[in-house]
């Protein structure tokens, strides 16, 4: 005997996570303090990672936590700590700007909803990928295979691009002798 069916349970969990995500996203914007905004943003990112996990996209969830929560946000916080005088003056935003921002976000929301509604088979398709499709091993094999399913050329191009970025960063940061 079961009290909750699997579908109902995953629905409830989805709405719970979504509510947390929306709440923290709103808190990110509303927080007076820049550092508090960054902290709320982390919770929002972790919520996104949980949504990925619920869709069986394990590697996406890990990448979300590793890159956004663990990497980007840490650097954002570092930048905030090193540059601004926190807590001394909150951000002041004038009313016309708030109005324009509201209009733009409403327009964006409208476009997004329209596109989602236009997706074919939205009502019948299962929301999760087939089991194992997005697991780490199949993900890695697809990334490196040269067949029609493979992504080896984009993968190599991206790695080359990252290498170029690294070399550029070192070149900029490098100090030559006598230059101090």
């Amino acid at each position: 005997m079961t009290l909750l069916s699997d579908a109902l349970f995953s629905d409830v969990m989805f709405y719970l996570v979504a509510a947390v995500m929306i709440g923290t996203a709103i808190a990110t914007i509303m927080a007076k303090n820049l550092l508090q905004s960054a902290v709320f943003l982390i919770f929002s990112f972790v919520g996104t990672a949980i949504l990925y996990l619920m869709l069986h996209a394990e590697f996406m969830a890990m990448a979300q936590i590793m890159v956004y929560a663990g990497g980007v946000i840490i650097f954002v916080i570092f930048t905030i700590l090193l540059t601004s005088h926190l807590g001394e003056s909150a951000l002041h935003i004038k009313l016309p700007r708030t109005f324009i921002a509201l209009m733009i976000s409403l327009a964006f929301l409208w476009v997004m909803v329209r596109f989602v509604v236009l997706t074919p088979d939205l009502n019948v398709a299962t929301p999760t990928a087939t089991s194992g499709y997005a697991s780490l091993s199949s993900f890695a094999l697809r990334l490196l295979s040269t067949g029609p399913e493979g992504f080896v050329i984009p993968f190599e191009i991206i790695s080359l691009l990252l290498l170029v970025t690294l070399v550029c960063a070192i070149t900029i940061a490098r100090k030559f002798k006598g230059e101090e």
Partner: protein
Amino acid sequence: MMTPSITHPIGDFIRANVPIPELAYLINAIICIVAICTVAFGAAMVLVYMERKVCAHVQCRLGPMRLGPHGCIQTVADTIKLFFKEVYAPNGADKFLFYLAPMVLLTAPFMCLSMIPFDHNLQVADISVGIPLIIAVNGFGILGILLGGWASNNKYSLLGSLRSGAQMISYEISYAMILLFVVMMSGSCSLQEITLSQSGNLFDWWIFKAPGIGFLAFLMFLISSTAELNRAPFDIAEAEQELTGGYHTEYNGLAFAMFYLAEYINLVTTSAIATVCFLGGYLPLSFGYAPVDHVLAIVPGFIWFFGKVFAMIWVYMMLRWTFVRPRVDQLMGLEWKFLLPVNLLLLALGAVFISLGWIVP
């Protein structure tokens, strides 16, 4: 969704004997939480005592001796004292972030503990992305320290947390690379499979199995994890002489206890990861000589596991009381100019060894 994909004897037993699946799910969850908390708090209590004793004996002292035989109740008394202290935030501190920081800091070690295989069946979650998740949640540790340092509204705390943040971000790269090296050798990201890939005798552990580079990788892991743990000799984050106490200067009572606890649980998890990745995890010691091996195999796996973990912890403690603290710039130079290139070389060498067939995963 209610039944996890991983089958587990204890979990299966409860699922088979409790009539309501939701209740079984809840009981399983509670068992997991209690188990992890027991390991975490128990190990932390033991480690505080052990640290004081090891420190004392290195310095030719006796350490705590008054409470109980050889002072073994001293830690209990200290814990009770910490529990009853008043928790307050300094004037002008950001209260929300001040109390959030230690909680954020504690998430990482608990998530790591839940993935560690203590024995064949003693593991909360055997997930296929274990190593990436460990690397990912390490970021929360840095976050907790940065937030705690800033929210204290104290210049020493802020300086300490910025130093520590820079240090941990840098050394995390080496740490992650060594873990990736182990993943490459064993061909799996699951901690259980990494352990099982070392089954055989003593020379099948990754520290010896990969000729030469295994031991080098282990040394690299030791260095980068000591820095990652913020332990001496890499404790510039809380260098007492310079920063009074670093990022937790303003914390007291339970909030301070959480920082302290996180430090010691991190020590356990890091030693456990070292044990899993290099020292064969819960697999018993064996020399390839059947009469001795059969006797050693009688000892259950989790005793082997904790034995290896405490041996690793002892190594970390001896490191702490042996070496002197490097300067900030020396520390950064060590990571970016020495450890990182050597780790890249190690990864490349590992690939060469595997392609030549010298290492069989």
